[in-house]
């Protein structure tokens, strides 16, 4: 903790920390000092000269004009922001910045939330005195996400500082000098970074704007917005989805210092357009007949009751959802309870279930510290195991890049090279299933080459973190990583451990007390023991373990926001609103319970899935269960102590869940397979179910297909671009890409969700 000192700002004494940035102090105190190049995430630069104030080292010393962003607080300092000369100076700086800026605010997409507009008004610059022509630029095509309008540039350098210095992107540069500085790529082309959308927020004016948002003219003040949590991965970035009429127009990150701070990834920002799809459900459908949702609920409740009476309570089971809220999953169990059943499966396979549940129980035990995103940024050793961070939890990748910038060594153990690998100190490509063995070797110490290098770096680190993927269903790896972190964790040197998951609320459902293996439910459905399945926000028909069961089950109720394979085949379909219109609580990778609020947007579907289910429970006459419905009852992870879990209750947003129970013993690693092992390749764009349906994300998604290491391809006489038929061995076939970045003995299967790309509706504002 730095020493507290006193400084005087505009005649008022303030207590600040010694060495604090004066501009930040003033902004924190709510004072409006105009500034451009300064950004809290990127620090000061002193380039724009706009945040000038009269600063004197002491009351009896003369003051002079200084940039507040470049000045650190010292005892007795006197800062005069409203000094006459400083005010005039700031106005003149804005006048200079405005020399070449077009006066196109009425048609500019930034209008209404433009920092330059605000700063110009604050400094009271009104009249353009220069008679010279303005310089003009050609704009570049930067891909489907970001629109480029160089004429509006005021040369603050924020874009390249964010894109290159902060996000470590390589294809955006600043060219030229003086009044002919150009910010862009070397040539037209899609921006390579997975975090390019943040340019829109970072740019203080309208050079970089949201291409999707500007397609349909909307003013930011016309948007209806409620704070929500991103549904595109398990990081749980806070977002502000903006609706106009019935459509989602854009998603912006919402500031949260404990989670995503200022930024978010492109998948989250542009992946929300599934909300607008023509395939979103509006009416209930029972036995092929469309009806009002209420009538559908009546019909479903009656049918379920009938089945329960006829075949007994065990004839009904539920399929919980990893992308629905805790409330919705709790309501599903309430419906089942009302029918006398307690059979729920939230996962796609037993392997996924074991891995996720073990990881979530380790996290919730709080035995080891779970780093938050800001915590990851400060790590001085990073080991990423088992997956591709950029694709599976993008914002974790951006946080790791900050650690890398601070020279933290980064080690990656995974079957396939991802975007983060080029920043790694060392990467180890190893076949799926063998990662756990390598982690154990690291924990044992010794070893050679890579293992020794990691072990040595881990030993000397002061704040190490280990990240592990649970997307590939490797519970042995989850357990091995836990043992490694535990052995590295000491009282004076805590070792952070974070697991990340498939979906937004996987960590939440992984803590459910009642959850069984999907294979067991599938088997019972196929044998006819289970007669009815209630499927909550989940395309279960597309999951290999459940597809057959769904097809054969007598009565399937699907509750979802959009049409998919499951709703197509279901006996009854009940519509619910999409995530960004819904409300509830989800648990992110840290086990942080975050409440998200919904917007009441006009449209035929008006109920959240939790409300739909509670309505069914009510029709079943289970008012007692509903009244006694405590989300703790379902998601109480402190089964032994019986104590309630803090943080899950609505309004308690942001708290970390904690369990008193110790994590279950990890399973022992399966013997390594000698043959080729299949591995699902997740991509940043196109692999996540909901965002893949969004048109800009679908445009960026790679083609589906298979990948092999060059040696494996050669030994099988397969070459790049060929159609590989591996149906006999792995049950898959597809276009083959030979990838030297894939471990030997790995068959990479790209997970690409079939996107329903529909042309955007023309809407007049």
């Amino acid at each position, binding site marked *: 903790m730095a020493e507290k000192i006193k400084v005087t700002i505009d005649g008022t004494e303030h207590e600040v920390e010694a060495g604090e940035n004066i501009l930040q102090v003033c902004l924190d105190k709510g004072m409006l000092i105009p500034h451009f190049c300064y950004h809290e995430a990127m620090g000061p630069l002193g380039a724009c000269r706009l945040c000038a104030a009269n600063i004197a080292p002491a009351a009896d010393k003369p003051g002079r004009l200084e940039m507040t962003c470049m000045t650190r607080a010292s005892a007795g300092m006197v800062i005069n922001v409203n000094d006459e000369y400083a005010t005039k100076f700031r106005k003149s700086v804005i006048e200079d910045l405005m020399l070449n800026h077009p006066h196109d605010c009425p048609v500019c997409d930034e209008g209404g939330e433009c920092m330059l507009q605000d700063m110009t008004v604050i400094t009271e610059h009104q009249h353009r005195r220069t008679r010279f022509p303005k310089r003009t630029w050609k704009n570049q095509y930067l891909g489907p996400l970001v629109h480029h309008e160089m004429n509006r540039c005021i040369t603050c350098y924020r874009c390249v500082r964010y894109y*290159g210095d902060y996000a470590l992107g*390589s*294809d*955006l*540069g*600043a*060219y*030229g*000098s*003086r009044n002919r500085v150009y910010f862009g*790529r*070397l040539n037209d082309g899609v921006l390579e970074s997975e975090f390019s959308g943040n340019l829109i927020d970072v740019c203080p004016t309208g050079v970089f704007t949201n291409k999707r948002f500007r397609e349909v003219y909307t003013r930011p003040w016309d948007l209806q917005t409620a704070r929500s949590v991103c549904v595109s991965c398990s990081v749980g970035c806070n977002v502000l989805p903006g609706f106009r009429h019935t459509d989602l127009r854009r998603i912006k990150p919402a500031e949260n210092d404990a989670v995503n701070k200022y930024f978010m990834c492109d998948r989250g920002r542009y992946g929300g357009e599934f909300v607008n799809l023509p395939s979103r459900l509006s009416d209930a459908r029972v036995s092929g007949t469309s009806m009002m949702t209420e009538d559908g609920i009546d019909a479903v409740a009656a049918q379920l009751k009938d089945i329960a009476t006829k075949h007994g309570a065990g004839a009904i089971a539920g399929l919980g959802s990893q992308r629905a809220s805790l409330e919705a999953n709790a309501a599903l169990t309430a419906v089942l309870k009302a029918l006398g059943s307690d059979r729920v499966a939230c996962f796609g396979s037993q392997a996924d279930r074991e891995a996720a549940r073990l990881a979530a129980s380790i996290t919730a035990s709080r035995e080891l510290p779970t780093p938050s995103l800001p915590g990851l940024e400060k790590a001085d050793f990073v080991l990423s195991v088992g997956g591709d961070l950029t694709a599976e939890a993008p914002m974790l990748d951006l946080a790791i890049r900050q650690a890398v910038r601070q020279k933290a060594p980064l080690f990656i153990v995974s079957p396939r090279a991802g975007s983060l690998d080029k920043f790694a100190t060392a990467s180890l490509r190893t076949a799926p299933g063998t990662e756990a063995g390598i982690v154990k070797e690291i924990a044992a110490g010794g070893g050679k080459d890579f293992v020794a290098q990691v072990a040595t770096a881990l030993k000397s680190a002061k704040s190490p973190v280990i990240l592990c993927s649970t997307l590939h269903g490797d519970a042995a790896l989850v357990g091995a990583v836990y043992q490694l972190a535990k052995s590295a964790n000491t009282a004076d040197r805590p070792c952070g451990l974070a697991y990340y998951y498939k979906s937004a609320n996987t960590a939440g459902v992984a803590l459910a007390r009642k959850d069984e293996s999907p294979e067991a439910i599938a088997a019972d459905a196929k044998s006819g023991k289970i007669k009815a399945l209630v499927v909550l926000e989940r395309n279960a028909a597309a999951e290999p373990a459940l597809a057959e069961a769904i097809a054969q089950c007598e009565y399937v109720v699907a509750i979802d926001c959009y049409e998919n394979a499951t709703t197509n085949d279901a006996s009854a379909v009940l519509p619910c609103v999409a995530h960004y219109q819904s409300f509830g609580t989800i648990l992110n990778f840290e086990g942080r319970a975050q409440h998200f609020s919904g917007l009441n947007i006009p449209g035929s579907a008006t109920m959240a899935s939790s409300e739909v289910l509670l309505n069914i429970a009510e029709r079943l006459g289970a008012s007692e269960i509903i009244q006694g419905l405590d989300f703790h009852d379902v998601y109480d992870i402190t089964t032994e102590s019986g104590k309630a879990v803090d943080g899950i209750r609505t309004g308690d947003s942001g708290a970390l869940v904690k369990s008193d129970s110790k994590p279950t013993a990890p399973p022992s690693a399966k013997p390594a397979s000698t043959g080729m092992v299949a591995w699902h390749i997740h991509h940043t764009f196109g692999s996540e179910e909901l965002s893949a349906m969004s048109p800009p994300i679908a445009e960026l998604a790679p083609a589906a297909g298979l990948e092999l290491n060059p040696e494996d391809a050669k030994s099988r006489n397969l070459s790049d671009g060929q159609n590989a038929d591996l149906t006999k061995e792995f049950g898959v076939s597809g276009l083959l890409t030979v990838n030297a970045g894939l471990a030997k003995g790995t068959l990479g299967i790209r997970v690409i969700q079939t996107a329903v790309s529909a042309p955007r509706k023309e809407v007049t504002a």
Partner: protein
Amino acid sequence: MVPEHIRKELSDHCAHYDSRRVGLIWVLQQLQEYYGGWLNDDAVREAADIVGVTEADAEGVATFYNWFFREPVGENVIVVCDSISCHLCGCDKITAHLEKRLGIKMGETTADKKYTLLPVVCLGNCDKSPCLMIGDELYDNVTPESLDKTLDEISSKPKAAAK
């Protein structure tokens, strides 16, 4: 592409610094000399590759400085200062004289590829305005007469042997 031994020399030079980036300007200078006075796209790419920075970075540096040329220039590049001091001391006259004598406008190269005429903002020589540079030489207190004499001398010199 430069021959392997030059490439190695350039690359080794970058290793002298804490950050290889520091060597970028020097590498660009050497490549500009090697490629006949200007940097084409390939040369910038090559520099980025040798130093180990992104192409965007190398392009940023190559376009920032006055003495890196991204287009072909003549054998002698004349830069005339048009900043405040020189402007007050009559640089316009100097420019007009040069344009007349060489038969080209500011920013152009003579047909015989002997001269390129460019403006520059301040040569840090304000006390001896107006001033200009021809190649690496700085000329103070230039008058049309002194300029004619200098240009006559340069024109009479035999063309430097191509590298």
